[in-house]
């Protein structure tokens, strides 16, 4: 895995510190050109991974990358699925079962439709999950997706419910069908790691908040630090800057002093900020 991964929160109006800032970003990035400009800047800074949700607008980014294969020869996507609001709003509008029916693929492929209908009718959770994953992956067709993540709202819901089988289903499907490694985003890393170990998912890739102020690190900072230092898994740090609550140098220093952390996912809106993070990470890696 690469050391630096580029995230997408800033493009879609997500900011944990300020709604005004989130809205300003949503306005700035409402056209895909503006997103591509920043992605190009990141790419030029040597950041070759775009870790993104399966937001509808990511499909436009995918189209652009597919249309310029030479330019983005080294670009990899780490899809994070599903874009949970889409499903949550569907459930609110239609109820659980009807929402499920609506989200299953129905364009053209009669077999997929039939399979989906059957899967829903027979409560074949594995079949439903596979179809939903395939539906989310469609936008990445022909692109490199070496790691595929389960988004935190879903990971954490399944974790809380004790629906452990679903992690196994997800891991198996992304490995078999996409030759990708499964990754899991969570706000509850210690609890999740126990479950993944129990399921025999070896050396799992887990992306969680890891930051100097303990923001959304459930179980506490000390527990996180101990587990990162002592357990076998591949941690990815997100929310390192806590949406801007921590100064970059301090934020990177905290993560860099934990050598087991493989990667850092971060978002930025300008080349200057991207460069700053890259330089800080490089400098801290040299010290390490």
């Amino acid at each position, binding site marked *: 895995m690469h050391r630096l991964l580029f995230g997408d929160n800033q493009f*879609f*109006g*997500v*900011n*944990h*510190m*300020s*709604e005004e800032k*989130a809205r300003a970003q*949503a306005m700035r990035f409402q056209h895909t050109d503006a997103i591509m400009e920043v992605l190009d800047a990141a790419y030029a800074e040597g950041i070759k991974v775009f870790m993104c949700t399966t937001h509808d607008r990511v499909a436009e980014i995918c189209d652009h990358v597919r249309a310029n294969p030479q330019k983005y020869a080294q670009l990899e996507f780490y899809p994070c699925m599903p874009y949970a*609001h889409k499903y*949550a*709003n569907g*459930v*609110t*509008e*239609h*109820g*659980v*079962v*009807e929402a499920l029916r609506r989200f299953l693929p129905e364009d053209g492929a009669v077999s997929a439709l039939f399979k989906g209908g059957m899967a829903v009718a027979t*409560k074949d*959770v594995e079949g439903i999950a596979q179809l939903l994953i395939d539906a989310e992956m469609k936008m990445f067709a022909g692109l490199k997706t070496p790691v595929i993540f389960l988004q935190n*709202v879903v990971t*954490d*819901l399944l*974790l*809380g*419910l*004790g*629906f452990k*089988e*679903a992690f196994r289903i997800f891991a198996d499907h992304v490995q078999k069908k996409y030759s990708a490694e499964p990754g899991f985003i969570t*706000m*509850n890393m210690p*609890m999740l790691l126990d479950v993944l170990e129990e399921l025999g998912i070896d050396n799992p890739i887990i992306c969680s908040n890891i930051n100097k*102020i*303990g*923001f*959304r*690190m*459930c*179980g*506490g*900072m000390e527990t996180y630090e101990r587990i990162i230092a002592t357990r076998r898994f591949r941690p990815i740090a997100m929310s390192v800057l*806590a*949406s801007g*609550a921590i100064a970059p140098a301090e934020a990177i220093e905290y993560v860099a002093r934990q050598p087991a952390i493989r990667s850092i996912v971060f978002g930025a809106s300008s080349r200057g900020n991207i460069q700053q993070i890259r330089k800080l990470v490089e400098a801290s890696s040299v010290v390490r």
Partner: protein
Amino acid sequence: MIRAGLIGLGKMGISHQAILRVHPHVQLMGVCDSSQYVRDVLGKYTPTPTYGDYRRLIDECQLDCVVIATPSRFHGEMVKYALERGLHVFCEKPFCLDIQEGQRLVEIATAGKLVNQVGYHYRHIETFLEAKRLLDAQVLGEIHHVRAEAYGPVVLRPAGSTWRSSKEQGGGCLYDYASHAIDLVNFLVGAPVRISGAMLNSIFSKTVEDEVYASMHFANGATGQIAANWSDESHRKMSTRISVWGSNGRMTIERQECQIYLRRAVESPVALPRGWTIRYATDLAQPVWYYLRGEEYSNQIDHFVRCIETRADDNICSFKSALETDKVLELVLQAAQSGSAAVQSPAGPRKRTTRYGGLFRFANRTES
């Protein structure tokens, strides 16, 4: 361990199931839903037993408490059943669409010394709690205006077939969205005593309103406005904002931050400088034992559990407080019909002792 049951496995119910199941002091004994489909899937893949009849869940599982997350029209019957069997009850919002019924439930819970809570989760968001601490410390001086707003993307097409599109079942923007904004007003500055200029408009829905606007009038003469719209997809998810103006400045509170502007510095009981102070959720939020969608969902269940453990009767979001919110919702409905609606016995937010107080009170009385 506290033995808990859960009734209703919709969006909120499933989220409660996850939170309850992993709470270190709770043993989730069973969950109940009328949908066979949902029961079958959860029954097969999760360790929690499922029930189709809530009475069986309550009668057979020797519960200490129950969480009720069904559509609002079932709340009255289910809450009553649970309370009469001595269970502590957490009920989703809005509490009870019938004020008299809600009043009876408050009485049963109080008489039985049972912990009772309603799921107005915004009361458990750190920025709003911080605002409550500051407002209680009167940093804004005399409050004269409050604005409560809630916007988000729920109904964006002329469709919808769930209970949310039925007024009788507790659907509509008023019960779903405006209720949160109104509950926060009640929490932060106290309940209005009169509602006027209420407008319930439909944008996409056939049978319920998609937007709500109304003016609030407080016993001390302060005024306020409510604006809610659940057909506004320019907001990625529900966005709730409360703004409060007082003689010493203003405060705007959202999930992420609490912005305070003071005319003069205050020294005690909290010290705040003149000008802008921003409190961020990233600094205020404390890690929870388990996180799903927001600290507040875990915090509210934890608060309920702690109240049961300590037999505390100072629940931050009791049936009584939720009934106050139901009453304001009722006033909004009445005002939409008749122009204005007031409560019988005014109970003001906080004393207003400026020289204008009397004038405001007089003006208020002549209007109503």
